[in-house]
């Protein structure tokens, strides 16, 4: 009874759908989170009677054969890199990107990580670090006696010392852009890694190319829309239900057979 297995693949796919939605809803308030969407594809087909097979010596052929599909499979769970809403936080070290760029973070293992989450702090060494304490790359050091930090749209970090009028530039924030940002690998903690699918990072100053300007005292909220997620949850649940009905129908047909004497 093929129908049972096919419906099972359907139920598993819908389960993945619900799992993806629940992850989106759980991260509804995560800074810089990008919603995920599953993509499904049909599984292989079995040819029981091949289309175009010859049915006689004079060359007549089967116009439409019997092709039985074997169900559905998840093809990808991809991120939707749509701009999230910008929220004013009044915190001078919060940064948001309005564009396609990513902040470059130096991970403890030396390689670069990329993130949209711009919640920065000052480490004991005076470096601008993210919530996990990993420094921005290239590193930006804020002098201990600076009283004010200002970051402009082009990513220039300037500080002001007590009793002085002019500001002093201490570094520039650089952003990375990718040909295919969907291809970046998520490793948790709002962090993404470069892959062959994403293409190499192109480093650009904020505001140039597609990187987009950096906004001080703003954070990018997640781009999860609760209403869409809820409607998708309903669709997924109903589709799950439908597949279970197929299993029931298959079961009833098998029960009919077993009653045969």
């Amino acid at each position, binding site marked *: *009874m*093929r*129908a*049972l297995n*096919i*419906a099972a693949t*359907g139920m598993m*796919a*819908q389960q993945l759908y619900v799992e993806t939605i629940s992850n989106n809803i759980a991260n509804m308030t995560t800074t810089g989170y990008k919603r995920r969407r599953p*993509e*499904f*594809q*049909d*599984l*292989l*087909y079995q*040819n029981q*009677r091949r*289309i*175009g097979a010859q049915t006689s010596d004079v060359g007549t052929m089967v116009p*439409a*054969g*019997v*092709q*039985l*599909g*074997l*169900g*559905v499979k998840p*093809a*990808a769970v*991809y991120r*939707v890199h*749509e701009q999230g809403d910008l929220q004013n936080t009044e915190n001078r070290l919060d940064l948001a990107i309005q564009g*396609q760029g990513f902040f470059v973070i130096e991970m403890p293992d030396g390689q670069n990580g990329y993130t949209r989450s711009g919640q920065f702090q000052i480490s004991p060494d005076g470096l601008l670090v993210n919530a996990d304490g990993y420094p921005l790359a290239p590193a930006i050091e804020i002098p201990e006696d600076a009283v004010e930090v200002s970051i402009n749209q082009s990513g220039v970090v300037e500080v002001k010392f007590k009793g002085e009028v002019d500001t002093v530039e201490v570094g520039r924030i650089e952003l990375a852009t990718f*040909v*295919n940002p969907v*291809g970046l690998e998520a490793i948790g903690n709002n962090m993404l890694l470069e892959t*062959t*699918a*994403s*293409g*190499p990072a192109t480093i650009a100053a904020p505001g140039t190319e*597609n990187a987009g300007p950096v906004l001080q005292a703003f954070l990018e909220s997640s781009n999860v829309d609760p209403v869409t997620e809820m409607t998708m949850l309903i*669709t*997924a649940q*109903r*589709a799950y239900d*439908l*597949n279970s*009905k*197929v299993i029931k*129908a*298959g079961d*009833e*047909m098998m029960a*009919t*057979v077993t009653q*045969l*004497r």
Partner: protein
Amino acid sequence: MENTGYVALSRQLALQNRLAVLAHNIANAETTGFLGDDMTFQQVLSRAEPSRSIAFVQDLTPEPDLSEGELRMTGGPLDFAIGRDGMFAVQTEGGVRYTRAGHFRLDQDDRLVTFDGDPVLDVDEQPIRLPGGVDALEVATDGTLSVEGEVVGQFRRASFEEPERLEREGAMLFRTDEAPGVAAGAEVHQGALEASNVEPILAMTRLMETNRAFQKTQKLIETQHQMTRKAVERLLDVRG
């Protein structure tokens, strides 16, 4: 006498296949660009005696249901829906394949590819490249792609004279030996995806129908079985 059983058996086998087809449709109720199908049955005549003929059931999958699924707006710059009769052409390892699932992305070489990494083809059967990024990408309804006013390619919109000969390959791809024409009337829409065209209500009613038909056939077998038994009993009575 046994013919009743064999005819019923052929029907039950066909119905089981129909259930598999329905299950496959329902499993793909949320698959982008999926085209459902249903089974038609044909009778196969077999001459049992010179004066009578007996019809067995044989199942045939007809052409995929080419009706358009509903359009879902996604706003994604690389999401495309293609109008009725049209299909996107994709270069796979095994040759050119066709699909209605216009859910693409860019690969590291700026090529427009499917989720399996197969490049999408333009009118000249060359991979479509988008070196200018996707931000300024605009797509006209005839499938012409332009970045900042500069034309970078046009989708191959394949149409088929015999869509019933399209063979499914899985992963949303169709193959055919026919050289496809151009679907001039098939409009391409950016920022939308075509949902699966499986109608849950139709699928449910067909499911119930199949189940009932199976049970009825079963009843037929039972009736025939009882008749045989009665006949045997009568014969014994006569002898006794």
